[in-house]
């Protein structure tokens, strides 16, 4: 168990500093207040608030070491504060997944080009949460309906590619997409009687090929 002392103008400030430095929410810290501090008069008699903080060792937890849970919303709020973004966070449960919804002035900046920034933040947040929990944690970040908009855009793209594949009998490809985006394309066409989909390439980003199931049908000849 490691101990450190943090100081601040108030006890609250000292604890907040401790949480930031240690990268843990305050529920995971043992906090002992050494002095509450006083603001003094015109800087005279000014005393800083002091807290002694220790982090309980993970193995000290009596059962199931993986049950320790960091609060995704709180960590995200701290990240947003460090990014100096003007956004508020709201947590919802959707289909068994925790979805963190952000809204505010910096929504566009947060989403980034083709969702690059929101995806990067989501990836890092999940890594950070998984590290604390000792198991894989998967939360979804959304920002002013971005995920829904993206899905609609991809579904439309899938339909366009299908139409072209159907007309010409050739394969058509999407741009390079990440796994979530590829999934949207596969799902949009999964039970399609005319075309099939397949991911092509390797690495994080792949293309999706949309091609006719059978030549004959591709040319519009029905059974």
């Amino acid at each position: 168990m490691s101990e450190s002392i943090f100081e601040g103008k108030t006890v609250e400030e000292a604890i907040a500093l401790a949480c930031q430095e240690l990268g843990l929410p305050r529920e995971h810290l043992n906090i002992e207040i050494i002095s509450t501090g006083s603001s003094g008069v015109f800087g005279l008699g000014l005393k800083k608030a002091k807290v002694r903080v220790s982090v309980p060792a993970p193995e000290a937890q009596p059962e199931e070491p993986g049950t320790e849970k960091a609060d995704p919303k709180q960590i995200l709020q701290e990240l947003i504060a460090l990014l100096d973004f003007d956004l508020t966070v709201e947590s919802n449960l959707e289909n068994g997944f925790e979805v963190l919804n952000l809204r505010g002035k910096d929504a566009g900046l947060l989403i980034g080009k083709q969702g690059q920034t929101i995806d990067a933040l989501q990836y890092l947040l999940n890594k950070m949460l998984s590290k604390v929990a000792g198991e894989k944690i998967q939360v979804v970040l959304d920002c002013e309906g971005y995920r829904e908009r993206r899905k609609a855009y991809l579904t439309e793209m899938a339909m366009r590619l299908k139409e072209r594949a159907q007309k010409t009998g050739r394969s058509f490809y999407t741009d390079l997409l990440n796994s979530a985006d590829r999934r949207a394309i596969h799902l949009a066409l999964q039970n399609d009687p005319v075309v099939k989909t397949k991911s092509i390439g390797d690495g994080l980003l792949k293309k999706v090929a949309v091609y006719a199931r059978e030549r004959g049908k591709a040319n519009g000849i029905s059974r």
Partner: protein
Amino acid sequence: MKELIRYIARALVDNPDAVEVNEIEGEQTSVIELKVAKEDLGKVIGKQGRTARSMRTILSAASTKLRKRSVLEIIE
């Protein structure tokens, strides 16, 4: 900027006390140097560099707001 990287890096590694972050500020571009314990290098880089890339992506988003450019360098 520096605090952002420090916060993320500390949450990813096994050895948070070994995390060191320096910011070298230039007129337009600042360089942020991240140093971690040798065993933790992989954790801040990630599979196919994905973690490092994600940190760089959000770093540039934060810099955009300040009308600056920031570069993240991971020091071995």
